[in-house]
């Protein structure tokens, strides 16, 4: 078994991006069960993936390492925002604006190499996308199942489109988010007690997904329209789900919405010119 893992890159990617983050997330979710901190399972799963694939390194602070840094810091900002101003109407917009500004900081060296208006257009585009993705997720902060389903669909779409865009790193990162979200959903299906994500969960997922997919755009070959179509996933999970149904039934329906919407960015890359 160990030999298969060591000698097969596909098995390695599946274990690093899927199996290990799922197991780690289940453990974290079980330990922190019924507390909002169980949403730390998302970042724990992602961190496990990083530890296995490349390890933690922040020097020199390249775009990929800035993404890692922000993914690890996002839950802390989310916890602080939950404590300070969880109910304020402006909190969602402020945190989303922070995510947009952070996206520009992440890719500033690449934007600086673009000529003339291209740099401004690309900078405005990635800031706007990170803002929109984070704002859409943060608006789900009182709904555990919709957020979990969105994270599952977004993680899968981000991971698969990253692979099709020639980035294994962002592929395993996206799949790790999907696996961790799957672990949370599984725990709730078993105990029927979903826990609202608050800003801790939604900001973490929004920042991670926005930056992973933008990494595939800026550092690999993801087409811009595939990036934009990822926004359909957090929109799709807003569709009606039977409120009186069991947690399992609602989870199933919401995940179905998310997965169908996730097919659109995947198809966009698949059918892209040269894709």
């Amino acid at each position: 078994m160990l030999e298969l893992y060591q000698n097969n890159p596909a098995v390695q990617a599946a274990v690093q991006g899927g199996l290990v983050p799922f197991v780690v997330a289940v453990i974290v979710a079980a330990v922190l069960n019924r507390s909002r901190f169980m949403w730390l399972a998302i970042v724990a799963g992602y961190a496990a993936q990083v530890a296995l694939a490349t390890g933690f390194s922040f020097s020199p602070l390249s775009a990929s390492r800035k993404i890692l840094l922000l993914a690890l810091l996002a839950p802390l900002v989310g916890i602080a925002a939950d404590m300070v101003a969880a109910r304020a109407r402006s909190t969602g917009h402020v945190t989303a604006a922070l995510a947009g500004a952070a996206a520009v900081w992440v890719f500033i060296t690449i934007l600086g190499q673009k000529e003339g208006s291209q740099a401004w257009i690309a900078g405005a585009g990635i800031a706007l996308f990170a803002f929109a993705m984070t704002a859409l997720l943060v608006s789900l902060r009182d709904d555990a199942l919709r957020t979990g389903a969105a994270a599952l669909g977004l993680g899968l779409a981000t991971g698969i489109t990253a692979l099709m865009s020639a980035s294994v790193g962002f592929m395993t990162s996206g799949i790790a988010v999907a696996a961790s979200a799957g672990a949370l959903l599984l725990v709730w299906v078993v105990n029927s007690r979903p826990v609202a994500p608050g800003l801790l969960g939604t900001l973490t997922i929004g920042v991670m997904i926005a930056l992973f997919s933008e990494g595939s755009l800026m550092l690999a070959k993801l087409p811009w329209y595939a990036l934009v179509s990822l926004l359909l996933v957090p929109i799709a999970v807003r569709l009606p789900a039977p409120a009186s149904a069991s947690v399992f039934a609602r989870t199933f329906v919401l995940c179905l919405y998310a997965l169908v919407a996730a097919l659109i960015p995947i198809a966009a890359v698949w059918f892209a010119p040269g894709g």
Partner: protein
Amino acid sequence: MLKSLSAVALLALPIAAFAATDNYTVDPLHSSVNFTVDHLGLTNIYGRFTKFSAKYSMDKAAKSGAMEASVDTASVDTNENDKGSRARSRDEHLRSADFFNAAEFPKMTYKSTKVNFSGDNPSTVEGTLTLLGVTHPVTFKFDRFKCNPASGTSKERCGGVVSGVVKRSDFGMKRGVPNIGDDIAIVIAFEGDKD
């Protein structure tokens, strides 16, 4: 008087040494930057960079020299740029953030710090390689070096082959290790005309 003459002679020494240094610009038509990496312990993958520039200087009398090279990382070519039915080709993957991160770090540079001689010919060149924003010392061995004297309208032309090994993980390029080997064997073949 003798003192003044000595001072003039001393001042003239570095000028004479400078004058003996010959500068060369590498001719890309007769030069190549190649690399080899182990794949799954089964075979080697061979690759090259198609866009680069380099200059070197040599003072055979003083047994000193210098080298500078700049390589476009996006020009990596492992003879696998046609993706066929797959999502992306290997060369596209090599250009991504998993490996050379060409969008963020478009250049890989080498700058020598010392050229060592064995007899009349250079034997090794010590220097620093900067890749992915990380600078690390790398020594290349001269496998061969020879100069053809100027004749007619042709300038003096010198060329050679240098080789060395770098650990890509030293530069933070860790994706796929050890299935895709950590040690990268580099062979640079070059010819250059005297400026």
